C-alpha cells in the first residue's frame, strides 16, 4: 500500500529544462515533506506523532531529519497542543565512576538511558536547555591525576536522540553560571548561578571580588532595557535551584530543611519547611515535571521516596511523595518539552 499515487503531479519539476540538473541529487530542502501534500499540512501531520517516535522519524530522509531538529518543529507541536514533557537526570552509579543521563516520561516512568555523553567525565559544567536541545558546557575533568578546565560544548538533540560537539567556548571554565539569557556581568563573580525569570536574568550566590565570603547581592539584568541592577537579599551558598512557573526555588546549604522561594514580582522570599523524611542529613537536587518540584536525594537512603512540592496545590497539601526516582544519585536534571 502506498500513500501516494504512482503518478505524482506535485513533485517539483524545476530541473526539467536543464537535463544536467536532473541527475543531481535533489536538495533535501526542496523536496516535499510528504509527497502530494502542502508542506504546512505535512508538517502538522509529523508534529502529531508522539515524541518517542522522533529518533526513528529522523532516520527516514534528510528532509524529515532537518525538520525534526528545527525550532519550527517545536513551534508546530506547541501550536497543535501536543508538547510532551520529559525529565532528564544525570545520575552517578554506586561506585561513583560512571555517570549517565536517564530519561523519564511525563509520568516519571519508563527509565531509559541516553547514548553516552561524549568527552571525559566532568564536574562543574554548565547545563542549559535551548529549543529542545540540551547543552552541556565546559567543566572540570581529571585525567591521569591531572585536573583541567575544559571549553568543550556538547549538544544533545532530544528529538533525534543524538549528541554532537559544538564550537568550543572562548574560555575554558568550570563552576560558572549559565542561563538562557546571557550578558556580561558588571563585576567578576564566581561560584554563582543564574536563571532567567520573566525576561530578566538573575545572578545569585557565589562570591564576587568586592565581597568577603558569600555574596548576598543579586545581579539582575533587564533584557528589555539592557540594564543591570542589584538587590541585596539573595540566598547564599545555594546547593540546588530550579525555576518553576514564575518563581525561583532554592535550597541553601545552611538550611537544607527549607525551600526558599523567590517571587520576582515583589522580589520577596518565602521560606517553606521541607517535611522530615528519614535521615536529616539528606541533601537534595531539584527536578521539575508537570509543574511540580521534585526533590531527589543526593545520597542513597533506602527508605527515601522522592519528595514532591506542588506550588498550586491547596494550602496544606503541597507536599507529597512521588514514585519518580532516578536509578542512582542525581547530579543534575533538566526538563525538555518538545
Amino acid at each position, binding site marked *: 500500500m502506498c500513500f501516494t499515487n504512482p503518478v505524482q503531479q506535485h513533485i517539483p519539476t524545476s530541473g526539467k529544462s536543464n537535463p544536467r540538473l536532473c541527475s543531481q541529487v535533489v536538495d533535501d530542502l526542496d523536496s516535499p515533506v510528504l509527497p502530494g501534500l502542502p508542506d504546512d499540512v505535512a508538517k*502538522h501531520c509529523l508534529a502529531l506523532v508522539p515524541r518517542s517516535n522522533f529518533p526513528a522519524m529522523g532516520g*527516514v530522509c534528510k528532509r524529515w531529519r532537518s525538520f525534526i531538529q528545527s525550532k519550527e518543529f517545536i513551534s508546530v507541536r506547541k501550536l497543535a497542543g501536543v508538547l510532551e514533557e520529559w525529565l532528564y537526570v544525570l545520575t552517578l552509579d554506586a561506585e561513583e565512576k560512571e555517570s549517565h543521563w536517564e530519561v523519564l516520561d511525563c509520568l516519571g516512568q519508563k527509565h531509559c538511558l541516553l547514548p553516552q555523553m561524549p568527552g571525559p567525565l566532568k564536574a562543574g559544567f554548565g547545563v542549559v536547555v535551548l529549543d529542545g536541545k540540551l547543552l552541556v558546557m565546559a567543566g572540570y575533568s581529571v585525567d591521569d591525576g591531572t585536573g583541567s578546565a575544559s571549553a568543550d560544548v556538547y549538544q544533545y538533540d532530544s528529538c533525534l536522540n543524538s549528541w554532537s560537539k559544538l564550537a568550543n567556548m572562548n574560555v575554558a571554565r568550570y563552576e560558572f553560571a549559565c542561563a538562557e539569557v546571557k550578558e556580561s556581568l558588571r563585576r567578576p563573580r564566581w561560584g554563582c548561578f543564574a536563571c532567567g525569570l520573566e525576561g530578566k536574568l538573575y545572578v545569585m550566590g557565589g562570591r564576587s571580588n568586592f565581597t568577603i565570603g558569600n555574596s548576598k547581592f543579586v545581579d539582575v539584568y533587564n533584557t528589555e532595557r539592557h540594564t543591570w541592577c542589584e538587590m541585596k537579599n539573595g540566598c547564599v551558598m545555594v546547593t540546588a535551584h530550579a525555576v518553576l512557573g514564575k518563581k525561583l526555588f532554592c535550597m541553601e546549604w545552611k538550611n537544607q530543611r527549607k525551600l526558599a522561594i523567590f517571587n520576582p514580582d515583589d522580589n520577596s522570599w518565602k521560606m517553606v519547611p521541607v517535611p522530615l523524611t528519614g535521615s536529616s542529613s539528606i541533601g537534595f537536587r531539584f527536578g521539575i515535571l508537570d509543574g511540580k518540584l521534585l526533590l531527589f536525594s543526593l545520597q542513597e537512603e533506602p527508605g527515601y521516596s522522592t519528595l514532591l512540592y506542588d506550588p498550586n496545590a491547596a494550602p496544606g497539601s503541597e507536599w507529597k511523595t512521588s514514585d519518580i526516582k532516578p536509578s542512582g544519585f542525581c547530579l543534575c536534571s533538566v526538563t525538555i518539552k518538545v
Partner: protein
Amino acid sequence: MSNQSESPNPTSSSNKITLKTSDNEVFEVEEAVAMKFCTVKQYFDDENNNNVTSGTSTTLIPLPNVESHPLAILITYCKKHLEIKANNADNKKEMEIDMEHYEREFLKNVMPQELTELILAANYLNFKEALDFFCRAVASAIQNKSVEYVRKFFGLESDFKPGEEEKLREEFAWSFEGVDED
C-alpha cells in the same frame, strides 16, 4: 423548500446550498453542512452581503480545487459529525467516544492514497475538524512503524549515504515503545 431535514441538528435550517466541483458534479447540501466548510461559508457570506435584497438563496458555489470523490466523502463525514454533536449536545465525553468510534470505522474504508485527496480537499475547504482528523490518521501511519514501512507508505526514499544510515540506526534503536509489525 421545507423538506424534512435528515439531520436532527435543531439549529440547522432546511436551506440547501449547491456546490459544484472541478469535475462538474453538483452537490446539494444542507446549509449546516456547507457552513462547516469555512471557504464555502466565506463565499456564502460575501454573496449574501452583496445581494441583501434577494431573499432567495439559490447560490451555486463553484469549488475549482475540489473533485467530487473527496467532496462526497467529506459531506458524509460532516453530516455524521453534526449528527453526533447534536445527539450528545449536553455530554462532551459521550460525543468524543461516539466520534472516535465513527472515525475508527471511517478509516477502515479509506485507502491510503485517498487520504491525500481528502487532506487536500479539507485543507482547501478549510474544514478544520476533518483536516485535523486526517492529519491524525497520517500521524498514526508513522507511529511505532519501522523506518522502511514509513518510507514505503509515503513514497519517500532514503537520501542518506550507507555509512550515515548505519549511524542513524544506532540512534533510533533507542525508543520508548517497540515497533509494530509492518
